[in-house]
């Protein structure tokens, strides 16, 4: 009897080893996926980081906006504890997923070349952005799960690498085939011609960030301008759209809506920018700002970086924080101003007269996009000084910085490259209470990376210039 039971027990057990069982097949997740779904996730995450987590601290550090101490002054004093997830999420949620999507697209028959191209363009964008924030970053060994401790590539190599990525992507684009289309292509709805324009424009933006340190890039910029096929109208602009629906609103609006009941009271008018606008008699002041609640109409009181707000302090205009405003990754005005710079610096032909025309066109687009009236715009643009060998650096840099007023990531790059150290446009001074003597020139690597990756560079301070920053 006992033996029988034992035998029965053993029989039950040993036959039930889950050999052909599907118990451990995950019902919550998939083992295969369409790359388009990975692409929409990567783009949404990337845009969110740009428009939210990376916006506020950088706008405050770079004195593009002022904090007024509403959330403490520490961010103006270069505290970057609020840039907490951007580093990691860029690699895990953006770059890794793009890598995986490329792999899947390449292993599908026929190979979806356009999808690969779209992923590569976004990837180049993300790598370039990350490098221009942090400096040397993992690139060649990054985001593929194959190397446990990715090495940090030199910024020069990363930026050159992104250009190579863009060239590969441009080479893959086939205008007669479909890639990732709407709704998953949240930027261009699958319009590959626009993707190619953006790829070329992005390439130019990256080259411009490099050219001060690597003058050979001037020729490459010239070739790009000559080749055309870049963003050539507002319809070509690279935008990630938000909607006035819960959970789909531009986070800049949500922040104010959630924390302040829809009443903007966090982001203030920063003195260096305000002073620049005043010096230029710029009509954009009431478009950039709104007066404080207790200030007179049209009374704009700016704040220094570590000044505490009062009810009279002017704020960033609520019209720039609307729920359905898109996140701008590349604008037409930005393109025109780059072209103006290319001509003015002699990378492209035409001389200062052509450069001035391009600049005026760029400023005009920039102001119209802001909602400035055509009359005011035209008057201001006409009054802009013609570019000359002596004034072009300053005049262009001023306009380029103002053009990027709501885009702190690009604005900070522009500011650092606008002049040699100490000669940036507009002029800024290190805020009281900052831990370094100079202006901030880089973000410091996150402790998660420092603690887990022995290859993380050390010994850098906030005011150590990056390679590009000459």
């Amino acid at each position: 009897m006992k033996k029988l039971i034992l035998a029965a027990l053993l029989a039950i057990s040993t036959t039930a080893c889950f050999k052909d069982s599907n118990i451990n097949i995950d019902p919550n997740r998939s083992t295969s996926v369409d790359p388009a779904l990975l692409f929409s996730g990567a783009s949404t995450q990337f845009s969110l980081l740009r428009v939210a987590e990376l916006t506020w601290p950088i706008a405050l550090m770079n004195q593009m906006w002022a904090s007024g101490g509403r959330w403490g002054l520490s961010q103006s004093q270069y505290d970057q504890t609020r840039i907490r997830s951007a580093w990691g999420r860029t690699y895990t949620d953006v770059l890794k997923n793009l890598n995986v999507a490329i792999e899947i697209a390449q292993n599908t028959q026929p190979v979806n070349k356009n999808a690969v191209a779209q992923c590569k363009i976004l990837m180049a964008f993300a790598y370039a952005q990350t490098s221009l924030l942090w400096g040397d970053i993992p690139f060649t060994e990054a985001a593929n799960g194959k190397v446990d401790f990715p090495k940090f590539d030199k910024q020069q190599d990363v930026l050159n690498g992104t250009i190579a990525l863009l060239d590969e992507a441009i080479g893959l684009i086939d205008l007669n085939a479909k890639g990732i289309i709407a709704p998953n292509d949240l930027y261009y709805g699958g319009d590959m011609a626009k993707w190619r324009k953006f790829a070329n424009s992005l390439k130019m933006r990256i080259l411009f960030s490099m050219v001060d340190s690597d003058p050979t890039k001037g020729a490459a910029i010239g070739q790009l301008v000559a080749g055309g096929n870049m963003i050539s109208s507002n319809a070509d602009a690279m935008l990630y759209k938000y909607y006035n629906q819960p959970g789909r609103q531009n986070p800049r609006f949500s922040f104010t809506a959630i924390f302040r009941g829809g009443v903007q009271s966090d982001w203030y008018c920063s003195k260096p920018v305000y002073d620049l606008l005043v010096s230029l008699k710029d009509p954009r002041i009431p478009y950039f700002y709104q007066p404080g609640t207790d200030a007179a109409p049209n009374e704009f009181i700016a704040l220094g970086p570590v000044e505490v707000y009062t009810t009279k302090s002017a704020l960033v205009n609520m019209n720039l924080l609307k729920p359905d405003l898109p996140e701008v990754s590349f604008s037409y005005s930005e393109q025109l101003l780059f072209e103006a710079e290319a001509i003015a610096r002699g990378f492209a032909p035409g001389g200062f007269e052509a450069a001035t025309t391009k600049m005026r066109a760029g400023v005009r687009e920039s102001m119209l996009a802001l909602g400035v009236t055509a009359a005011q715009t035209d008057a201001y643009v006409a009054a802009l000084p013609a570019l000359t060998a002596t004034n072009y650096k300053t005049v262009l840099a001023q306009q380029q910085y103002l053009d990027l007023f709501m885009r702190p990531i690009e604005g900070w790059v522009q500011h650092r490259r606008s002049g040699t150290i100490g000669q940036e446009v507009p002029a800024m001074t290190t805020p009281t209470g900052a831990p370094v003597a100079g202006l901030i020139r880089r973000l410091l690597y996150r402790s998660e990376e420092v603690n887990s990756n022995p290859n993380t560079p050390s010994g850098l301070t906030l005011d150590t210039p990056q390679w590009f920053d000459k």
Partner: protein
Amino acid sequence: MKRRLLLLMLLGMSMLGRAQTRTISGKVTSPENEGVPGVNVLLKGTNVGTATKADGTYQISVPDKAGTLVFSFIGYKTADVTIGNQSTINIQLEADLVNLNEVVVTANAIVREKKELGYAVSTIGGAELVKARDPNVLNSMAGRIAGVRISQQSGTVGGSSRVMIRGANSISSSSEPLFVVDGIPISNSSFNNSETDVVTGGVDVGNRAGDLNPDDIETMNVLKGAAASALYGSRARNGVIVITTKRGKQGAKKMNVTVNSSYRTDNVLRVPELQTEYAQGNLGVYNPQSGNGWGPKISSVTGPVKDYKGETVQGLQAYPQNWKNFFVTGHTMINSVSLDGATDQGDYRIGYTNLRQTGTVPGSELNRNTFAINAGKKITDKLTSRAWVNYVRTTSDGRPQQGSNTTNIIATILAGLPVTVDINELRNNLFAPSTQAVPAGWTGDLARSIDLNGVQNNPYFVTAFNRFSNTVDRVYGGTSLSYDVTPWFNVTGRVGTDFFTENRRAVTRKGTRGRLNGQFETNDIFERELQTDILGTISRKINTNWTFKGIVGHQFNQRTIRRSRLLSEGLNIDQLYTFANAQSNVPSNFFSRRDIFGVYGDFSFDYKNYLFLNVTGRNDWSSTLPVNNNSYFYPSASVSFVLTEAFPNLGIVKNDILSYAKLRANYANVGSDEDPYQLSFTYNPLTQASDIYTFNILYPIGGASAFGATNILPPTNLRPQQQTSYEFGAELKFFGGRLGLDMTYYKTLNYDQIISIAIPQTTGYSARRLNVGEISNRGLEAMLTVTPFKTRSGFRWDAAFNFNRNINRVESLAPGLTEFITTSGDGFGIFVVARPGETFSIQGVGWLRDPQGNIIINPTTGLRTPGPRKVFGSIYPDWTLGINNSFSYKGIDFNFLVDVRKGGVINSQTVSIVRGSGLAAETAIDNRTPFIDPGVIRNADGTFRPNDKPVASIQQYWSQLDNSVSPENNIFDGSYTKLREVRIAYNLPKSWISKTPFGSIALGLEGRNLWIISSKVPHIDPEANVLGTGLIGEGLERGSIPSSRTVGGNLRFTF
């Protein structure tokens, strides 16, 4: 215990039919002079015997005058009485402090004599649990059992309690013990096991072991080591709490009726001490809308001034009792009734308990109804059956949010309430005109809730409208059939299940600051555990010296979880919480299932009833491991040696100096599986994109859904996890039991743990899953019991000391890995970290210090400077001690329990906030005169000089000490001494009630969590922890609801 008793009783009764010559009757009484039922009365040297009835009387027929009657009963000394000519023999039993024959329910409802066991077991009798009834039965264990640490996580009504036995066993998951009721494992989940669940506006929803009803519990045995794992499987490696529920008992009547009623009140034990001198503002300048105390002195604000509502008032006034006045007195009523009875053919018990509780947070409440049925039937002489079912329905409403990052957190709101705000005014004016600009088109209530500065909600608005409610319907129980094939071979089959559904809903009303459009989250959870056992038991005497007992069994265990959540945002109509009324609904669902097959054997040898040897072995097959590596075997061995029975003739034994001595040792190895679905590279459907702020982008956006590849690289060649442990122990009793010592030394090593190890995020992944890591616990448990005082008149003083020291150490991590972050206090720069060679510690940015350890001060500001990350201390205590004193005299029992914790650290966000906001009492000292912070300043040549730069303002000083700069000043020694419990119980003498229908009446008064005798943590109860029971880590407090001081009374009577 009862089974054995029943057997003896049956035996005794069967003897009645024999040749009788005379009858002897009498009554057996206790030292308290009350009848003792169930005492064995046996004619010495024969099989003639009986048992006393419910009132303690007995009748026995004996052949002649010669002989001796032996009266024996557990807990009393056995008494021999020579019969002689007596026909009535009344006897008063003496309490036996040695308790040689104590029996213990161990694995799989198997009853063993305690002396057989080679491992440490502690028991709490059900009577202890119902004298002072805590709604969460786990709390009644606090301080009573060596090696077991119970920590109540918050003062939330129905809040959770963490149980840890002998330290943490895992680097990555919680080390909660297994709960087993009547042989069937039950769930202790809380579904609060992600950091976002508990840190970001989490609600303490309690843990499911809190559903256990104290009134239905006969005994709770705590098996502390892994020795019981053979029969329970790998989950027993963290220890097992074995609960046996009550069964029907044979009494004087066919049916016993027991009624037990308790009433208790709860008040908050401790709230922050606030300053009363300063108004809100900035750097001494009054600003009515600031949520702090950094304005001018209240006494200096005279004349017309605007108050926080924007109304003009004549001067300001301090309301120092705001915290205290916010909380209310909670009331708890527990009423239970049970009917039970038994015959020699079967037994039954039906119990019903109703619990109604209101919490200290206004509007929070909990109701629980428990039905318990347990019945056994002897079908034939060989076949017996039993079935038991418990149904528990728990509903709660208004549990408060804790943690951070939402505007609904009561403690955070209170911590930002200026002293000049009258909380009574907030209570009475939920809908006064708002001081804030509101979005266009908002009218009515929406525009009128009083708030402070557009950021903080009125706390009463939150408690009135933003409510969390849940309902749990739970059934657990089982059935068993047992067949005696031969007198020495028994086969038992058992099937049991535990399943529940829980429906949660958290609503946030339109107009709530931070969630202006309103939202609600619906969460449906279903969990089921099913277990079947078939086991054969052989019990044979091999020869006069040796007895063998063997168990062979098969077990199947299945656990399934189903969960669906729906987040609905943007309400069209205020307070209408339907999906169709939301502008956006984001659903998500989850399912998991895991199966385990196990075969096990348990073999014991008993030599002369004083040497016991036990070996066990078990093999499991788990569905969660790779198919080719899913089988694992684990053995254990233990030995127990009763010295005093082996050498009864030793001098000290004979003279009763050493009354009892048992030595025990055991070794066990336990293998275990891992969570389901961890083996493949997967793509997850995404519900949202997020960054560090709380407003996420929800999918689909612009019509696009999204997926993401896993962030955890799946493992290759996964092996089962392993634990090896051994323990040595001794149980010693001296002087007839007046002095007792039970101590254990143990060591546990966990290795091959299956962990997701963080890898650089630049790899594209945040973690890699693999077998790594070793973690060990070694420690000493000691329980010392003394009866310093005992008189013939019945007065008695007993003291018990429960001491536990556990040394937890992370032995190694993955090669090349220097640390493992288990839980990060996200947003506050605080991490719970495991590092090789150390225990789990709290780490964070510390102040920059010179080589001598002096804090380096910034020469321009006079403030401290944040430096590198450092270790602040262990999250676990160095040792804990429970001291229980009990005094009894003639039915009166007086008891008090003091609980001591030494060591470990705690980080408090509440302290950080009340200090940083200038509301804590210490921020107002010395009229806020700026002072020189002790420290040093770095000279240009790298040397240091004493700090000579005063801080610019006290506000800057305290703001710099905020958690977000460095947690160092908000980290405190977690040591405390608490008066945990005071209890007076009185059993009315039987003589008083003999004329009434009552069988017994007992009264009790109780107080729990009464007094923090000493603590080094300011402002809060040092026991608070935000992480609940599902996450590893302790010592992080985030806006916790203050714990309660409970006082109440109890009335228990039987018919």
